[in-house]
């Protein structure tokens, strides 16, 4: 017969609580991700469309472009670097779908959606920052992608699918 003393019982109780928290939390979070992930992302996308329209009306076109020469401005008195970034990641559900799809290959729409949003958002931020800082045009715009926030452990990289987009260009006035 084993005798269960006070500390042993406490330890067992603690372990049971810990395991049940994890056993409950992860499935619940996964279901939450499935139900609300798409909703959350599309609400951000709608907000982005409104902002894009507003800036287009304000500027009368686009104030950022990739040419190295100004289009509208004749005389430049000042210039400076304009830089914006965003970090995006697919939801748990999208990651799961992506992993299943990557078995068969082909287009993975669940990642596609997030990355498209990230690029559009970073460009919009560049436009807004240029307006806020008073630049009349942003020339030579470049968009870069980096995976800086990943742990490299046992050959498995980028587990969460976190990506950073950086957009930068030269603001002129």
């Amino acid at each position, binding site marked *: 017969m084993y005798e269960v003393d006070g500390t042993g019982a406490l330890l067992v109780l603690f372990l049971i609580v810990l395991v049940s928290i994890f056993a409950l939390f992860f499935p619940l*979070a996964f279901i939450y991700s499935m139900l609300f992930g798409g909703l959350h992302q599309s609400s*951000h996308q709608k907000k982005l469309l409104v902002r894009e329209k507003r800036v287009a009306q304000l500027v009368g076109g686009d104030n950022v472009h990739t040419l190295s020469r100004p289009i509208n401005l004749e005389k430049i008195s*000042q210039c400076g670097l304009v830089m914006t970034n965003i970090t995006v990641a697919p939801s748990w559900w999208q990651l799961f779908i992506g992993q299943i799809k990557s078995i068969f290959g082909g287009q993975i729409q669940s990642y596609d959606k997030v990355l498209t949003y990230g690029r559009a958002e970073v460009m919009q931020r560049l436009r807004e920052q240029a307006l806020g800082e008073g630049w009349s045009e942003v020339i030579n715009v470049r968009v870069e992608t980096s995976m800086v926030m990943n742990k490299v452990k046992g050959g498995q990289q980028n587990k969460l699918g976190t990506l950073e987009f950086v957009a930068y260009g030269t603001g002129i006035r």
Partner: protein
Amino acid sequence: MTSNTETIPGFKITKSLGVATGSTVRAKHIGKDILAGLKNIVGGELKAYTELLMEARTEALGRMMMDGAQRGANAVVNVRFATSSVAGGAAELFAYGTAVIVEQE
């Protein structure tokens, strides 16, 4: 003045003073990491990382401009950024460009 174009339109480069560089290594806070992991459930933007990386990149850019100023330049042209993962979640952000003296044409 900083620019990522080779020349600044309307300005003339009179002297080149070499490559100005600036870098910073940042690691993420473990609390932020956990919070970002939770935010990751629904996907989309991870604001904590965005802010962290922006802060780091601004610092690298600031150091590059300090380097340029020490060389006696009044502008840094052709600025480029590079990022690399160093180890276990730490990232190096590196900015470099050509320190020059420019004059208005």
